[in-house]
């Protein structure tokens, strides 16, 4: 079985926004990027891994259920795209039809 940490990094996944990260000193390219603290969850909102910081591209807020893309594709969600991030929020979920 693939460890959660590997899967989290390898695909697109759901998360709940828990807070805002404020960082004054950041690597070049991250200036002006909004960072949120996200808890990865499954389709029933059950936590599935460790909290992580993610760049927000869709103006999400605390409490929102969102979906994220990880790894290199997270950087591709940003403009400019050559930035040092490994998780990006790319959508705010309105509903899931899951049994």
């Amino acid at each position, binding site marked *: *079985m693939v460890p959660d940490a590997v*899967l989290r990094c390898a695909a697109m996944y759901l998360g709940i926004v828990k807070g805002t990260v404020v960082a004054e000193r950041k690597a070049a390219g991250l200036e002006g990027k909004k960072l949120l603290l996200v808890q990865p969850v499954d389709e029933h909102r059950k936590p599935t891994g460790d909290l992580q910081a993610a760049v927000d*591209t869709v103006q999400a807020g605390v409490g929102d259920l969102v979906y994220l*893309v990880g790894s290199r594709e*997270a950087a*591709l969600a940003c403009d400019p795209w050559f930035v040092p991030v490994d998780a990006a929020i790319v959508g705010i979920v*309105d*509903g899931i039809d*899951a049994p």
Partner: protein
Amino acid sequence: MKHCRVVGPLWAAAKHPAYAGRPLFVVQPIDERGADAGTSFVAIDHVQAGVGDRVLVLTEGNGVRQILKMGDIVPIRSVIVGIVDHVET
């Protein structure tokens, strides 16, 4: 590629422009007998999959960019690329 079961669709009004018009599903990785194996994740659909289908999910960015033909700057990593008829064990 991962062997998964389609759990259900999800809707999102606010999303990155690259996801516009693309159906999104929650998929659950399964083993060769169909039992859950790992944590569910999100994938876009490229083969008109339905809920409950066993599918193949590509989770590698470069292959995804080749399939979607949207250029090189595509923040999408998981795509359903096949519907599994059966697995022989």
